[in-house]
């Protein structure tokens, strides 16, 4: 974009150095050092760097770097998407896992090098757009360029001859042409209207460059909108079992990711209760049996604690909007209801347990921690199967996603669960290393297998466990992004600008008229496009037709540019 600027600068010191070097040996060394360090000065260096950065070649290079730089983010697991997968990946690949981490390959899109690429690209973009905007503003305010001497050199050129008896002199012809071009959207300036050779310059399509500038500026707008979202937005997750209520306060979230400038006071305390969740599965397509075809969550919402309750439906692709946030249905599963009695016969745990989906047909893992059990704390680990079936090898699996034959298979443990020390633990995992097993397939007592309503007593009088029934749960994502509306607006602006810049053509037309020796009025015109314009020939033909109709000329096809008539016109005048 500033290709022309670059050519201007050539270090004068290098040239003078060569001349001096020829004059004297002693001065040669000095001259060489001068040549090695062009006397640009600090300011000059900055200017040179700026010119380099804002050049089209650099912009193109940075653009391609951006494409290449984005790729690793799809090859390696990314922390923002799932930090646990990254930790596991580093563990699984001890030889290079840490090395990749040092290169920030698990945080590609916030890495120093990726940021460097896009920040440089945007600086380059600003440095390119600003001077172009100024130049275009000037161009829009100035008159079309002067009429070239030889119109026949332009890529599109044609002539018309008005018969002497038509009574249209050169001055009228040029004004007629000016009127026609104005109607066609050209900006027109008539020159030397009453002289021998009146001419006009016309230009249209200023919108092309405007579109180009809008496109590039909008991209900056999109970037800023994304930044605003990162600063002031927040997101979180919450698992809701049927009957549970989520209240939009920090403690209401299972997981919460605040933006850099987030303040907890900006959380509006709305609430959403999950009344019922329905999942429908495909029972008619061959080979796809059991594939989900519908998830619907019936919820009751309140904008504020005092607002009236409102029944709403939450579905995939159909979020619920509340208090400036949107709530999305992102997951679901089964939550078996369990009652655990301890060795003293007291109920030490009662309620739903979130079963984490692990495999086909809601084959889910279950962990129950009972720290309140006395005299010993109890722990359970196992599986939940909505439709329990057994293979011929004796392995249990889930045969269908629906609750046809729900079953809980558990091992039990007792001992110190380690929850009293205040160290945070994953609720979905139980560290059994320091615990003593009670029930297990390998022990005499065997594993616990429960169907709804059944109770199993634990060995050694440690208590009992009852499978009361099954509820469903949903995973809800809560998002607040104040930047996204702006991102959409700038995105749409960018597309509008892009289409304008690609499909509006900037064209210049010049027309010159004159009187031939035999009394005819000769008209010649030429067209020039700025940039690529494959429809310039079409425009030339359209203009010719307009002129011919205006002056009642017989419709003649465009003569090749080098005919005798046209060359004589330009010479005779």
């Amino acid at each position, binding site marked *: 974009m500033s290709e022309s600027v670059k050519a201007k600068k050539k270090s004068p010191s290098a040239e003078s150095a060569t001349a001096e070097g020829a004059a004297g040996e002693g001065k040669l060394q000095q001259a060489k050092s001068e040549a090695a360090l062009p006397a640009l000065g600090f300011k000059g260096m900055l200017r040179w760097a700026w010119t380099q950065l804002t050049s089209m070649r650099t912009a*193109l290079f940075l653009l391609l770097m951006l494409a290449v730089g984005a790729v690793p983010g*799809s090859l390696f697991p990314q922390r923002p998407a799932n930090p646990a997968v990254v930790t596991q990946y580093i563990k699984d690949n001890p030889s290079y896992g840490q090395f990749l981490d040092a290169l920030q390959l698990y945080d590609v899109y916030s890495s120093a090098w990726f940021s460097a690429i896009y920040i440089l690209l945007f600086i380059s973009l600003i440095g390119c757009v600003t001077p172009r905007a100024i130049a275009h503003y000037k161009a829009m305010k100035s008159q079309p360029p002067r009429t070239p001497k030889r119109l026949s050199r332009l890529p599109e050129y044609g002539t018309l001859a008005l018969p002497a008896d038509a009574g249209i002199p050169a001055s009228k012809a040029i004004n007629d042409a000016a009127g026609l071009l104005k109607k066609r959207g050209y900006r027109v300036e008539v020159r030397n209207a009453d002289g021998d050779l009146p001419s006009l310059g016309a230009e249209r399509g200023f919108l092309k460059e405007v579109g180009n500038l809008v496109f590039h500026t909008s991209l900056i707008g999109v970037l800023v909108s994304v930044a605003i979202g990162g600063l002031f937005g927040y997101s979180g997750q919450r698992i809701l079992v049927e009957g549970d209520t989520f209240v939009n306060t920090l403690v209401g979230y299972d997981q919460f990711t605040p933006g850099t400038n987030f303040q907890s006071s900006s959380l509006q305390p709305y609430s959403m209760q999950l009344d019922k969740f329905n999942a429908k599965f495909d029972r008619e397509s061959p080979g796809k049996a059991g594939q989900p075809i519908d998830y619907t969550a019936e919820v009751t919402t309140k904008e504020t604690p005092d607002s009236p309750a409102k029944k709403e439906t939450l579905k995939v692709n159909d979020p619920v909007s509340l208090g400036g946030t949107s709530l999305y249905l992102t997951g679901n599963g089964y939550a078996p209801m369990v009652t655990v009695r301890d060795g003293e016969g007291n109920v030490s745990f009662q309620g739903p347990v979130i079963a984490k989906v692990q495999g086909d047909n809601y084959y889910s893992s279950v962990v129950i921690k009972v720290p309140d059990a006395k005299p010993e704390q109890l722990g359970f680990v196992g599986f939940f199967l909505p439709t329990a079936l057994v293979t011929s090898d004796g392995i249990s699996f889930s045969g269908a996603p629906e609750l046809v034959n729900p079953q809980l298979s558990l091992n039990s443990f007792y001992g110190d669960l380690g929850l009293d020390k205040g160290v945070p633990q994953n609720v979905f995992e139980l560290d059994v290393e320091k615990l003593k097993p009670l029930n297990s397939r390998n022990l005499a007592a065997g594993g616990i297998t429960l169907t709804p309503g059944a109770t199993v007593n634990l060995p050694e009088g440690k208590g009992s466990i009852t499978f009361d029934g099954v509820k469903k749960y949903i995973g809800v994502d809560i998002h607040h992004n104040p930047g996204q509306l702006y991102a959409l607006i700038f995105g749409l602006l960018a597309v509008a600008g892009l289409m304008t810049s690609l499909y509006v053509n900037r064209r210049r037309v010049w027309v010159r008229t004159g009187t031939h020796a035999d009394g005819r009025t000769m008209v010649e015109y030429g067209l020039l496009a700025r940039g690529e314009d494959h429809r310039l020939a079409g425009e030339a033909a359209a203009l010719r037709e307009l002129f011919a109709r205006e002056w009642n000329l017989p419709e003649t096809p465009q003569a090749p540019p080098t005919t005798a008539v046209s060359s004589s016109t330009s010479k005779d005048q």
Partner: protein
Amino acid sequence: MPAINETLGQYSELFMLLAAGTYTVAFIAFAWDLAKSSKTFQAVDLKAAASSAGEKVTVAAGRVGAALGGADAGGPAGRAERPTSSLTFEGGTAAGDMKYAAERRVPARIAVALTVLGVLIHAAGVITRALGAGRVPWGNMYEFLTTGAFVAVAVFLVTLIRRDLRFLGTFVLGLAIIMLVAASVSFWTPVGHLVPALQSYWLIIHVSIAVLSSALFTLTFAMSVLQLLQSYRQKNLAAGRKDNLSFMRVVPNALSLENLSYRINAIAFIGWTFTLMFGAIWAEKAWGRFWGWDPKEVWTFVIWVVYAGYLHARATRGWTGTRAAWLSIVGYACVIINFTLVNTVFQGLHSYSGL
């Protein structure tokens, strides 16, 4: 949710196979056209060389009466200074403006007729699939490939109405056949309902534009490959070496190919911009964020950036011609990766390929 009609689904698969078969015959006819044209012209060349060795250029120009068209198709004179330029060149017979010439190319006509037949059968296949499933026919990779191949061939045929791009026939049909075979062999999926994540009107908008843009990218990919071959051949001819790619005679010169593929790429780029934006809007509706660097998002972005680079390259000195063509080819390679590897190998939110 309408019921699944398995019978229609089976008819659809039959139509797809028939379409692939018809395309294969059409492909052979297009290849025959290239070979035959090459031979005819060689014979004319030999005759011309025997009768008047000195007037070879005149003969070449008058041979089909088509070469004249190339002379005034160039636009601004500055464009002719390009390395790959020279609008009329010795050893080329196709017009630069890609208008139909007077001469009859019987094999090419047969090939086009067969392609039309093939595309009608193909359309029947796509429509029966849609009716069988009771929804738009692009809900999984099998459907994306079969519908995508249909759109690619249809776009090619529509372009043929205005421009003589029959030289592209072997490439476009070759790619369509590969797509149909890959769909039936590697990505076959029976007719079925959509998972909840795909049940959105955005599937209709977002994916249809993605299919259309990909079809256009397929055309420009073929043209860019031909442009590179033709550019190489033009250099060879200019240096007075033997013409070892004589089938390229029916292909227009490199600059004309570059100009047309630029125009098509510009349309496809706008389409891809919409694909990206509508995808972001849908992602916001489905997952709560409009951008999350999911592998599919990454590659859609990479493709967008590569083609943006292509458009910029055309305005950068030293990057037009061959280098721009390479960018167009790299862009298409990314489209392929985005469809194959990203859907099957990479872990992401778009992994519901129906496999």
